[in-house]
């Protein structure tokens, strides 16, 4: 099987661990990943003002690229890219006035009428591979790893593009269970990490991140799994600062769900780029004897 894939800027640098682990996992599952040509930044956040169309042009241009290259589905990994592309796609599918204006503005491109479906990898895994098949393919079960899905905002909100209903975390739960992990319920699984407010003075984003991490530690959760590089930055890479400032008492390792999938499938740990996670993340997997390529 071959899929068309939109990576997103951060996955090429600071979140290379999200992408590389995904590509290696998909290869292990017999899926070939074809990155679309000439993609540009999706815009990261969806523009919410009714009259603003120029900020929809970026995501739509990527959908044009996918259409040009004959893709019916475009698979994404990053939650923010997924949300922005899917919401722009909704406009092109449902609002003919806006759609025509955007198409007229992009006079150097072919017309786009919402033909491509934007799919998050979690949805793809459920629909095209299936949890049972993944479970059969597991070579290094994540036994004893008490992990919780952390969805953040953009996988579920708003409802018309959410990968599942608000308050439900079934896709990642089923995935992690298939990998042999113990999935813990987590009250803060859909709380915002502070997002781009990290630019706007650190205090706000730090306090939201600290609340989420404390809640995880208090619940006995050993690790969080996410699909968003900004969540991973605010909750994971910033953890050292949170610990140093006394905002949290203990480290909670954070992973991309693709990394956990990869090691369970027996992909070589080097393909998961754990060097881009915080140190505690590697230690935990070593302690659980999960870091062995099968």
């Amino acid at each position, binding site marked *: 099987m071959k899929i068309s894939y939109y990576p997103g800027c951060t996955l090429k640098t600071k979140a290379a661990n999200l992408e590389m682990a995904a590509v290696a996992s998909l290869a292990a599952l017999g899926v070939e990943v074809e990155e679309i040509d000439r993609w540009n930044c999706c815009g*990261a956040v969806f*523009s919410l*003002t009714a009259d603003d169309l120029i900020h929809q042009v970026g995501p739509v241009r990527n959908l044009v690229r996918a259409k040009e290259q004959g893709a019916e589905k475009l698979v994404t990994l990053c939650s923010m890219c997924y949300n922005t592309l899917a919401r722009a796609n909704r406009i092109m599918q449902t609002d003919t006035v806006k759609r025509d204006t955007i198409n007229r503005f992009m006079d150097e491109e072919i017309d786009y009428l919402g033909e491509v479906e934007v799919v998050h990898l979690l949805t793809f895994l459920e629909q095209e591979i299936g949890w049972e098949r993944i479970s059969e393919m597991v070579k290094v079960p994540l036994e004893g790893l008490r992990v919780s899905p952390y969805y953040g905002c953009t996988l579920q*909100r*708003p409802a018309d593009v959410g990968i599942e209903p608000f308050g439900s975390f079934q896709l990642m739960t089923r995935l992690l269970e298939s990998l042999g992990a113990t999935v813990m319920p987590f009250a803060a699984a859909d*709380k915002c990490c502070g997002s781009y407010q990290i630019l*706007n003075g650190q205090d706000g984003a730090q306090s939201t991140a600290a609340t989420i991490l404390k809640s995880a530690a208090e619940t006995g959760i050993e690790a969080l799994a996410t699909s968003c590089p900004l969540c991973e930055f605010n909750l994971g890479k910033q953890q050292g600062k949170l610990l140093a400032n006394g905002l949290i008492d203990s480290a909670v390792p954070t992973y991309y769900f693709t990394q956990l999938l990869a090691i369970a499938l027996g992909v070589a740990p080097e393909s998961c780029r754990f060097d881009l996670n915080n140190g505690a993340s590697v230690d935990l997997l070593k302690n659980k004897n999960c870091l062995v390529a099968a």
Partner: protein
Amino acid sequence: MTLTITDQAIALKFFEKLKELSGENVKLCMQCATCTGMCPMAAEMDHSPRKIMHLAQFGLVDMLSASNTFWKCASCHACTVKCPRGIDIAKVMEALRQQVLRKSKNYIEPSALPAERIEELPQIALVAGFRKLTS
């Protein structure tokens, strides 16, 4: 006929603009404060999201423009999905931001960010932050 510009006249124009930009009717709000309860950034805000909706209902333009609430909003849509009146409050916040940004006023200055900070931040943080906080 003499047209007198009153607070009420200014407020009416404000309602029109807010509705045009956000597509939302703030007068539907029944002040239940579910939005405030859901908001992860409420502690950083000088007025809670509920209070911003109240100020907007009364067209208190000056108090609204002096508030930091919509600049602290992370567009997480936690308020939106739980509003019992179906108001997309994140869109109201965006409309309030845009009324300032469209006059070429930045809330944060990209060139004033320390180089070390830019180097460590993921690209989506910069793109998202600049979209929401710069004009």
